């Protein structure tokens, strides 16, 4: 009889690929974070040295990446149960959870320290708050407990333009708070549109998203309400004289289009058996909307600096 021999090759654990570490930072979400942070920095009335500006945006991106890694580490079991997220590095078994956690902590602490030392501790403090807000308040506390998770948790994604602005100016004024408020108000219709067409996934893993808990009709009504509130809010920087007409007119036009995309979603009773086309369109337009709105904000600042508008 042969004695069974353990072959180390069978238990050899391959090192995680760097691509999986990169995937842990949610690069697609990070692109929106980087863009809004950059726009906040460029729209500020004070110019910043390009090296310091680059450092600020890098730290915002690294902080967001760290928070995203901690989110994925905490939600690995939930992600495994959802089609949309099952192929992520942790649920797919391509990465050790401890490595993911340490990577997230390393990025978070490193980004705050570099931002503090290179730019200033107010911006670094805001970055630290945004990381804790997303990784702890939203991921651990709100998301599994309340259908209002997206409403309050939306604050986490609203920090980048505020941090960008503060990195340039060194202090908080009404304008960066308005930019924060715009993303805060934009988040619920953006995420609820997504939640409407992936609600079976959320229900399966017990996440109390609004469509799962309160039903489709309530979610649709809420999407419409938030979209209508976003319209005047997005134009407020113009109303208070913080931006010019370039931003004001574009903000009104873009927000009216947002309402236009939200109307068919909000007025629809139920999409049972439907294709959720209107919901998908609203979700994609909401991303275009945010990119365009912040791009126009920078264009408006440029127009003012060049003397093309008063």
């Amino acid at each position, binding site marked *: 009889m*042969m004695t069974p021999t353990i072959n*180390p*090759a069978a238990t050899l654990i391959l090192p995680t690929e*760097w691509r999986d570490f990169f995937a842990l930072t949610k690069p697609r979400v990070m692109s929106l974070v980087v863009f809004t942070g950059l726009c906040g920095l460029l729209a500020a009335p004070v110019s910043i*040295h390009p090296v310091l500006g680059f450092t600020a945006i890098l730290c915002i991106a690294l902080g967001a990446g760290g928070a995203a890694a901690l989110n994925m580490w905490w939600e690995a079991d939930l992600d495994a149960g959802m089609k949309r997220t099952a192929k992520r590095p942790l649920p797919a078994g391509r990465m050790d959870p401890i490595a993911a956690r340490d990577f997230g902590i390393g990025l978070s602490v490193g980004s705050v320290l570099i931002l503090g030392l290179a730019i200033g501790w107010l911006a670094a403090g805001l970055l630290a708050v945004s990381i804790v807000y997303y990784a702890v308040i939203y991921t651990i506390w709100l998301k599994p407990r309340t259908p209002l998770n997206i409403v309050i948790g939306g604050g986490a994604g609203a920090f980048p333009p505020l941090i960008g602005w503060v990195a340039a100016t060194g202090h908080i004024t009404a304008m960066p708070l308005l930019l924060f408020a715009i993303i805060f108000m934009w988040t619920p219709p953006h995420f609820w549109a997504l939640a409407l067409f992936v609600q079976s996934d959320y229900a399966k893993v017990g996440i109390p998203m609004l469509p799962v808990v309160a039903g489709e009709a309530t979610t649709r009504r809420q999407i419409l309400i938030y979209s209508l509130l976003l319209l005047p809010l997005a134009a407020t920087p113009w109303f208070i004289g913080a931006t010019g007409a370039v931003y004001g007119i574009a903000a009104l036009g873009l927000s009216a289009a947002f309402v236009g995309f939200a109307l068919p979603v909000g007025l629809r009773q139920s999409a049972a058996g439907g294709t959720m086309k209107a919901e998908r369109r609203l979700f994609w337009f909401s991303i275009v909307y945010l990119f365009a709105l912040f791009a126009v904000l920078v264009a408006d600042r440029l127009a003012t600096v060049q003397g093309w508008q008063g």
Partner: protein
Amino acid sequence: MTQTPPPPDMPNMPDMKQYRARQRSRNIALGLVLVFLVVLFYAITFVRLGAQHG
């Protein structure tokens, strides 16, 4: 006829090759990150000192 198992201290070659390749790509990525950070810290120091003395 019985098959001889691989020696206990020698993982088979394809796995070791993949192991080494991943280790190498991670080391390169980490090396690039470190070089980038050195350049960044140098540039930040240069700008900050310039701002203080300029």
